[in-house]
């Protein structure tokens, strides 16, 4: 059963066509890795899913909620955002709040969970990303890897059915990439639907059910990771893989 479906979705920034009639269906619990050269539309695609971007043509349906072109129905947008978590390249933690406050904010103000309950939930997720001891610190006092794990825990606190990752390890020092990927691999085992924009090919091989290769606003090639990495069918994918491997 599909949880996400895109039908000929188009999005431009001025003259630049970021998405060109993209169609895609994602099954519930499926784990998808999106890769491709910069400017190929990967980030735009996942940002259209939680309405950080508004698409111009086509329809997007997420967990039964359907968005036509340029739809900005507040209620629908809120409903989707409660259901879809996002982890950003730059973490985007709230620097004026402690780690625990970062995690409790949305459950308390969006879902109206009581503080005590929200904190209990938050501590549970901090343990899952293995930094419960940092709960009282401010984001600025943590390493990049720790900050990104807090960001993951923060999105988990809303119990999303879909998780979007926008290059989660690109802003990290190399020695911190693993601790974040480990958490993501563990998440992949929980059955949550994941869409991950990343160039971490090892991660894609272990976790992904399907790899999508994008270029110039289109999904050029898709397939199981093994097949895609060993024998890419298109020239563009071949060139791209040659460059990053």
């Amino acid at each position: 059963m599909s949880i996400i479906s895109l039908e000929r979705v188009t999005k431009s920034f001025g003259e630049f066509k970021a998405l060109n009639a993209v169609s895609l269906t994602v099954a519930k619990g499926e784990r998808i890795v999106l890769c491709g050269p910069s400017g190929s539309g990967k980030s735009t695609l996942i940002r259209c899913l939680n309405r950080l971007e508004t698409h111009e043509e086509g329809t997007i349906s997420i967990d039964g909620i359907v968005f036509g072109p340029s739809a900005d129905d507040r209620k629908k947008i809120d409903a989707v955002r409660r259901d879809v978590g996002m982890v950003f390249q730059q973490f985007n933690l709230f620097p004026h709040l402690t780690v625990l406050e970062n995690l409790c904010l949305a459950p308390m103000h969006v879902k109206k969970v009581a503080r005590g309950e929200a904190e209990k939930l938050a501590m549970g997720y901090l343990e899952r990303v293995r930094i419960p001891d940092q709960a009282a610190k401010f984001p600025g006092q943590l390493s990049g890897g720790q900050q990104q794990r807090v960001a993951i825990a923060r999105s988990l606190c809303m119990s999303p059915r879909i998780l979007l990752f926008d290059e989660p390890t690109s802003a990290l020092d190399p020695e911190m990439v693993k601790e974040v990927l480990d958490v993501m691999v563990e998440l992949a085992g929980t059955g949550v639907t994941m869409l991950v924009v990343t160039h971490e090919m090892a991660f894609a091989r272990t976790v992904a059910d399907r790899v999508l290769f994008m270029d110039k606003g289109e999904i050029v090639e898709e397939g199981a990771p093994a097949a895609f990495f060993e024998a890419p069918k298109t020239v563009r994918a071949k060139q791209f893989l040659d460059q990053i491997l």
Partner: protein
Amino acid sequence: MLKWIRKNLFATVLDSLVTLTIVALLAWLVPKILGWALFDANFVGVTREDCKSGGACWVFIGQRWRQFIYGFYPEDQLWRVNLSFAVLIAWSGLALVRSFRWRKYVVLSLVTVFPLLAFALLLGGAPTAKWGGLMLTLIIALVGIAFSLPAGILLALGRRSNPPIIKGLCVAFIELWRGVPLISVLFMASVMLPLTLPEGVNFDKLLRALVGVSLFSSAYMAEVVRGGLQAIPKGQFEAAHALALSYWQAQRLIILPQALRHVIPGIVNSFISLVKDTTLVLIIGMFDLLGIVQATLTDPAWLGYATEGYLFAGAIFWILCFTMSRASARLEHRLAHSGRTA
């Protein structure tokens, strides 16, 4: 100590010259000022006849301080003024207790219920035409501050929002009020506005001045706050939106706490200007602290003591503004050392 003096005051010939000149200047000036203001000054007495020594005549201030502080408010009603300010201080004190459970409501009532109560209490003693002195200065300044901060925040948010009508209105409002001198705003409020009102309708003059000052300072405040808003990275909005927070929740919980923190110095700067700008109400016939001191100077009984009068007014203004400046420095210091990075 000697080393420090050598290094910092007499390092070169030029340094030595400058140091000596300044020392000589101070040696000549300080005794003169102290002599006038303290040693040769007259503190006791009731009339100018008691000021004979040639120094400052503080008797003048002593005889007229009540007027400087309360204006023409009737003497037997002064308790109303005192009570209002005592309640204000107690109420604000309660609002500063951070662990207090109902703090939110204390703050809210401080800017809504309290002004109305105080206004009613003060009006019970005398019509606004009789209000003056430090009391009037503080009333205008406090109302201006209490109004301009929230209004400035809303204007700044409006100016950065998408709907073209809201954005346009906010830009027009800010640019209109910023482009006009406060004096002309006050003139408009006191002279022009009554002309446009129907016959018989009469707005209180103080109220008009308050509206004018408040709107004027809101426009300035809006630009200070906007500066803070622009310093917040776009990612903060996106993270808030991705967590399904609404626009107002995102502003209240994420954006404004960070933005306002960035611009505390600018906000306090605006408050200080506002306190000093209240002196301009003199030109529409209201007597704030400076105005009433100035008016008293023309009293034949005290002719010739302008220096004492202006020094007194200046000192009070300085104390008010310096207190605000220290309070802001303390707030910044506390925030800087709480581990919060924004």
